[in-house]
């Protein structure tokens, strides 16, 4: 199963984080687990990249963070989406869909 896991395509990590947080506020490990589960283990998130991405996204004004009690009574840093983060998610989703569709067309034409 580990063999199947793929490194995240450069630049998609931000979008996946935003998407995951669009449902509810989560902490770092939760986000990482959620991405792995939803992608059925295709994507494994590198913790270093993930935590760095949080810093970056927070500074862009797309994420807010706050320390609070996690479900198993540990203090954790929870991230949530800001209004401009939500907008950014829409922009990135649209761009991704456009690109994916284009690639799909190209592959079909090749075949």
């Amino acid at each position: 199963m580990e063999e199947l896991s793929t490194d995240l395509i450069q630049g998609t990590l931000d979008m996946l984080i935003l998407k995951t947080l669009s449902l509810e506020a989560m902490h770092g490990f939760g986000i990482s687990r959620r991405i792995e589960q939803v992608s059925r283990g295709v994507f494994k998130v590198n913790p270093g990249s993930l935590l760095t991405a949080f810093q970056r996204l927070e500074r862009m004004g797309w994420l807010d963070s706050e320390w609070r009690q996690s479900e198993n009574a540990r203090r954790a840093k929870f991230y949530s989406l800001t209004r401009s983060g939500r907008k950014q998610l829409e922009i990135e989703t649209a761009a991704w869909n456009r690109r994916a569709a284009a690639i799909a067309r190209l592959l079909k034409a090749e075949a």
Partner: protein
Amino acid sequence: MSLWRQFTRGLRVLAHRQAADQDVDDEVSHYLEESMAAFRARGFSPAEARRAARMEFGGAAVVREQVRDSGWENTIGILLADVRYAARRLCARPAFTLAGVLTLALGTGATTAIFSVIDCVLWKPLPYPHSERLVALRHTARGLKMAALNLSASLYFTYREESRTFEEVGMWSAGSATITGLAEPEDVPVLSVTEGFLPALEVQPAFGHRFTSLDDSPAGERTVILTDAWWKARFGGDPSVLGRRILIDGNASEVIGILPASFAFMDRRFSMLLPQRLDRGRVPLISFCCEGLARLRPGVNLEQASADVARMLPLATAKFPLNPGASAAGYRNARIGPNLRFLKDDLTGDIGNTLWVLMGTVGIVFLIAGANVANLLLVRADGRRHELAVRAALGASWMRSARDLLLESALLGLAGGALALVLAYGALRALAVFGPEHLPRIHEIRIEPIAMAFTLGVALGAALLFGLIPVLKYARPRLPEGLRGGGRSLSESRERHHARSFLSRCRLHWR
């Protein structure tokens, strides 16, 4: 918005480095704990869970560094550390540092002092509104071989009445008067002026009003406008002095105004302005007595004004009676012509040439100082040759070494520039006290912000420029050959010798 956020976040991290680091640490350890708990839930033993979590996470220290390095403030942090390191290196070599800073400070300080003199004497506008429109009304009398004839009362009235290019014309002369009736009788320097004098300068008294036409005519009562300094010295700055009469040369004169404290005129020392009270009807044609100044109408240039004066000069002969005993032919043969100059040029005269020669001299001194500093830096870098080579061999990029050397030079330059400002300030104070009497505007000379920027720019620029020489020699991209010979080589390599002897030769030639 997000740029602002980037900036403020970065600043906050810089200011609270420890708290920010702690935050990252906490997040990393929480991540590990959660990960471990997840493995436990899948049936791993505590030890196995810990191992698995660690494996998955990778090096915690590496992740921490990765997260911390992500912001812009990190670059600043490294730079600050480098600056601190460079400062420590300089402090560890006090003799070198002192010599470098002093040499730079002397060279730059002298340049700054002369630059400030040039700036304040030649460049700074006169302290009146739109002073670029002020001209001195001088004349030539080629028939009498006089290059700088002043203004006559007859011409003053002619210009006031006939001019098409002057907005306002004023006349003045310096003299002295005796003040009695206050305390001790006092002899004070005065300026006798006509009613157009202050309007031409566009100066209003701080209290009271300017001279009116009546004040300036023999029909009116005698009036006086005091300077701020004399008013404060004699009357303690009491405004009730307005309307009082003081005895000037035995004549009771009413104080009608106090000049602003900032008012200065052509480097003259005077305690009061007196109206000239000329009788228009009794002025003879030949009555050269005074200096004239005029304010040009907007858009009028010096040539147009000169042409206007040339047009008006013959008009005076018709308007004013010839002096008894003088001949009309004699006046005509004097061939009086216009010789207008801007008021500032009239004040500064040809001091500009002297100042620029001085600037050139000081510039050479500055270059000598620069060559000395370059030599010092080269010797210094020579001493670090081995260290630099080792660093390069260990993988330090040449950029990093270059930045190191240049930072040292920059610190030297900044310190030199700061000291130069102090030196220049002292030199200018000394100049104001002991300075030559004929240097115009000497009391206006100070270090303006532009001169400060000039100083720091020059000192920093010189330090960086001369700091480039060792950089090019020791920190340019190439193989670390310094390792071969190193700091303990038997004799200086030819290359090392070249740059230094070139610089000392430069210095010899400058002398």
